[in-house]
């Protein structure tokens, strides 16, 4: 048991280490991508280039640069931006977390509730037009580019139908802090929540339906039927429980990735200054310290989410305990 936990921890640390090395190599060692040339500008003279290289420490060996950067992120926390010199990177990331967390949590509640509902309805009325219609809608949700859906939402709620009763409550784009303006916070986030959730409702509804239908063929369902339990009780108490395993795995990974910055496109379209937008801006200006910090933060979330998923597994599925 202890050994297994240690092993898992080791694996987590390795994945985080691997990601940090990968990001570092992408930005510092990709052939043709010289960070000094980026900072100095297009037509910089060799002397200027050399000076930039020296002042940013790019002339040191790569492993030394890597270790220094990691030290500044995790130990001293005083890594500063290359672009806005003096702008501390770690606080900037911490400031952006509430925005992303608000966006992703709201969307997650929406998509979990709705997709469980859709999955149950589709599985209960399997192979009827209700099932087919719901699954087709789900597929449509999966197939739309999320940023485009966001633009359509903006078009409808900010411009075309903004003056009608339907969308007159929608405030202009932007983010309002929950602690300062709870009502504004809620209202500005409703449209982004819906937009982000639509994609995931499609995925999760389909996954849950498939898992439910598979579970309904198991022996323990037959046993439950033989005991004379009602069909709805079987579906809700017996089939749903095991079906949620696949659901929870997926949810952990998606939630981790989204909080870690994968909601980037949604944040860009709705002008929310979250982690994704921060990463995107940093990538645009090739602000390496900021990129390193946001990506390390993202990988941390993904890895932690993975670990939590493993634990929830044990709670949901008694079979895992003995394995």
């Amino acid at each position, binding site marked *: 048991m202890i050994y297994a936990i240690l092993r898992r921890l080791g694996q987590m640390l390795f994945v985080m280490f691997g*990601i940090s090395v990968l990001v570092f190599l992408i930005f510092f060692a990709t052939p043709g991508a010289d960070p000094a040339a980026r900072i100095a500008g297009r037509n910089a003279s060799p002397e200027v280039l050399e000076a930039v290289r020296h002042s940013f420490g790019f002339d040191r060996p790569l492993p030394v640069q890597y270790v220094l950067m990691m030290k500044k992120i995790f130990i001293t926390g005083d890594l500063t931006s290359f672009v806005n010199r003096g702008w501390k990177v770690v606080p900037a990331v911490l400031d952006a977390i509430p925005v992303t967390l608000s966006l992703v949590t709201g969307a997650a509640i929406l998509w979990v509730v709705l997709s469980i509902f859709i999955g149950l309805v589709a599985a209960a009325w399997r192979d009827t037009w209700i099932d087919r219609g719901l699954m087709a809608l789900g597929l449509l949700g999966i197939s739309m580019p999320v940023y485009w859906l966001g633009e*359509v939402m903006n078009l409808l709620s900010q411009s*075309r139908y903004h003056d009608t009763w339907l969308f007159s409550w929608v405030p202009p784009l932007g983010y309002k802090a929950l602690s300062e303006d709870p009502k504004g916070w809620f209202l500005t986030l409703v449209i982004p929540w819906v937009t982000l959730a639509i994609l995931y409702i499609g995925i999760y509804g389909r*996954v849950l339906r498939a898992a439910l239908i598979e579970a309904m063929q198991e022996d323990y369902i037959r046993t439950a039927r033989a005991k004379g339990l009602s069909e709805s009780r079987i579906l809700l108490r017996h089939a749903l429980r095991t079906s949620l395993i696949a659901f929870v795995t997926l949810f952990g990974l998606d939630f981790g990735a989204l909080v870690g910055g994968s909601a980037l496109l949604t944040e860009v379209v709705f002008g929310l200054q979250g982690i994704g937008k921060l990463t995107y801006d940093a*990538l645009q200006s090739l602000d390496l310290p900021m990129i390193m910090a946001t990506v390390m933060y993202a990988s941390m979330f993904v890895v932690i989410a993975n670990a939590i998923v493993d634990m929830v597994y044990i709670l949901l599925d008694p079979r895992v305990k003995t394995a």
Partner: protein
Amino acid sequence: MSDTTLSTAPVPARKGRGPWARAARRLWQNRSAMVALGIFLLIVAACLAAPLYARWAGVDPFQSTLDAVLKIDGVDVPVMEQSTEGLGLGYTPLGPTWNLKHYFLGADNQGRDVLARMLYGGLNSLWISAAATVLTLILGTAMGLAAGFFGGLTDTVLSRILDVLWAFPIYLLAISLSIVTLSEGLKIGPFVIESGSLWLPVIIIGIVYIPYVARPIRGQVLALRQSEFVLAAINLGVPGGRILWRDILPNVATTLIVFVPLMMALNMLTESALSFLSIGVQPPDASWGTIIQDGQALLYTRPWVALAPGLAIAVSVMALNVFGDGLRDALDPRSKIRLGRD
């Protein structure tokens, strides 16, 4: 399917159907999958006809025409009209005419025909997603086969690499790679890919989805490695490469085929996202993603510039997904292959 009609008896040889023929038949009978395939092929054909359309309509989708004047029903209409809102500064491009002869979907902010650009752009979107799919399948299969079959150190190293790639949020990785290669291109030894080349998004998208293919393939190979016919081949002294090629690869082939449409759908969305962030396809080339990006500034005045390419993406991706589901049901009804999205 050999016809062993050695006897002269006039027994009508009842053709045994191979698994492929049975799968093809199942697919053919799946109405929604065939409709989806038809729609997708129609889109492909329309995009292939882009040069023909441009010549027929007499438009150059890559040339900005700010002062062109159009004759519609005998009335002169400028392609870029002086804005009537606000201070009257700036220009608003022509809206949709809904006339296939000229500016069906209107003009973009450089006075270019949006429909013609969409057809050309679609060609790029389709090509990139198809090429990236091939690349992912080749690399992912190679990694999955090697890791699953050789085991040991090879497996450990490859699996750890896959773990890292898997945990890396797809879009962040793709965006990072795109930005680094955007201005200078990619130079690896003798291979040079110019910046702005369509190969850059192909390679980037091809790489980021490797774990999606490699992991399930590795799992299947691990199971096949223990199967009796493979053990027999190993004990007979058949060389490893030959076993991989003759015994293992044919057994993962159905999985690979099922991956094709599903990966293409995923790649198309990824390509469009990168292009939308202006780090995918570079001007003067277009793709559906770049046109949505062009249309963003015109969203409230000329929404069709952004709406139309998005619809094209949604319809293509949906068609690919439906067809992919049908293909999976036909080839391997029990399989649980499912492509997740990050």
